[in-house]
């Protein structure tokens, strides 16, 4: 469990990136900080591994104030995945993944063996081990970035807009992988994004932030969707534009067992199955999405 208690970050020039932020991030769940650029979400994330130190307030991991932990040791114990992978361009994939292990003096053979296993874990071919990052596609680099984050088997994985720079199809793949990994490895994931759909897809808990990292709303995707706390939240999740309110299209005839749904603006938003002209009732397993229809193999080469 990660706990923020009245955390403030004020820079020397007086700007407040984060002001009086308090929240609890539960263990073994995915928590997503979502908000527009400049809302302080990345600053919050980087406070967890002391890449940024708060000017006021306390951050605790499992009850221990992290200010008492030496930053380098803390960072080695927490996985970190960033946008554009942040891999070391002059090191092979296998050495990139093993970076943290080698820093903590794990014998090289052991570190490399673990790195190869991690290639499997993130769905990459072991043949890529001896390539350099520049020889991989963007999606593959991101997977390597995730593997590096997992190398030291940390309890916490920080992900800073990791899929911001890859194309939508690859992003969908990687999101599905993230869900799978979280389920298989049982990590506490803290994820930062500006994409509300990504936040709802990945988050068990979603924290919507306004400027200065003020919490606009905190809750499960279902809670937020069903009951936006403010106009800001409604606008942010698209509810005010009717993007979340779907109705059956009256104009387009049903094709087979599918009926077209439109949003409040009249744009096609999806289909709903209606066998025999009757709408199917909602399934009770909302979390079964996206994993089943994706292969575990990397399809983004």
């Amino acid at each position, binding site marked *: 469990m990660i706990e923020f208690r009245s955390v403030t970050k004020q820079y020397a020039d007086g700007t407040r990136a984060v002001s009086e932020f308090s929240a609890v991030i539960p263990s073994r769940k995915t928590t997503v900080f979502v908000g527009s650029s400049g809302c302080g979400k990345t600053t919050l994330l980087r406070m967890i591994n002391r890449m940024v130190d708060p000017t006021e307030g306390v951050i605790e991991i499992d009850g221990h104030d992290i200010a008492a932990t030496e930053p380098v040791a803390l*960072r080695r114990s927490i996985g970190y995945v960033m946008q554009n*992978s942040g891999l070391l361009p002059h090191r092979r994939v296998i050495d990139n993944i093993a*970076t943290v292990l080698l820093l903590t003096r794990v014998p090289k053979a052991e570190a490399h063996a673990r790195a190869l296993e991690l290639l499997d874990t993130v769905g990459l071919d072991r043949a890529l081990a001896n390539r350099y990052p520049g020889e991989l596609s963007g999606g593959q680099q991101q997977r390597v970035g995730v593997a590096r984050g997992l190398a030291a088997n940390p309890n916490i994985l920080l992900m800073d807009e990791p899929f911001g720079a890859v194309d939508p199809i690859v992003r969908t793949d990687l999101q599905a992988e993230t869900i799978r990994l979280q389920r298989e490895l049982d990590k506490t994931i803290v994820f930062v994004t500006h994409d509300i759909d990504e936040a709802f897809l990945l988050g068990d808990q979603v924290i919507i932030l306004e400027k200065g990292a003020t919490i606009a709303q905190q809750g499960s995707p279902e809670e937020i969707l069903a009951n936006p706390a403010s106009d800001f939240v409604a606008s942010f999740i698209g509810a005010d534009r009717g993007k979340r309110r779907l109705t059956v299209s009256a104009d387009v005839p049903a094709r087979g067992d599918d009926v077209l749904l439109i949003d409040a603006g009249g744009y096609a938003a999806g289909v709903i199955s209606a066998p025999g002209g009757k709408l199917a009732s909602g399934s009770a397993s909302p979390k079964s999405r996206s994993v089943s229809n994706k292969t575990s193999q990397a399809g983004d080469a």
Partner: protein
Amino acid sequence: MNLFGAGFAWILAPRHWVTTAEGSGIGDALVHHLFLTAVSVLITVVIAGPLGLYIGHTGRFRRVAIGASNAARALPTLGLLSALILLLGIGDVPPVVVLVVLGIPPLLAGAYAGLESLDRQTIDAARAVGMTEFQILRKVEIPLAAPLLLGGLRAAALQIVATVALASVFGLQSLGTFIIDGLAQADYVKMTAGAILVAALALLLDGVLAVVQRLVGPRGVSRGTDRHRTTARDGKKPVALTQDAH
């Protein structure tokens, strides 16, 4: 025979390689020239290397360094050398001090410019996964900036090796001795020979360092460039074929 040809002939004459009562031989002059160069480059690296890396890594004192470098560049080398010789007397110390002052700016610039040219995200990531500042410098910044660091060293070494000749104005042995003596004796062939020797040594040293600079390029990064070059070379093939067809 023109002056250049005569100069080369002078160099190739074996009797000019040994020191006699008449004057220094090329052998001794070359050895002392290289000695002054090596000592000066070494001291320059010891002073400017760590300083440049520190400035490049932290971004601190950058302005001070640029200002000081520019000031050092503006110092008249011969004037400084004269002043130091008046102060300290004839010997190897004054020219070495002058050469170090001359060598520091390009090396310093290469070091901090090299580190500053690196992708901030890569450094940030290295820090975020738990490298110490020193590990970031040693395992990330220096390997990635190696070609530019070597570039700074190359510029410094070239300045130094060419300027060592000035020491001979004050009677110190170097390849410049032949230029100074030749001028004094109105022996323009000897003077030309001296100039050729200084230039040849500078080119040789620069060539060696250029090769080293290519070799130290980080692999994963230079590979992309290599691939680029191959494509460029392949691009020439059709041209050659067209020429064959004519």
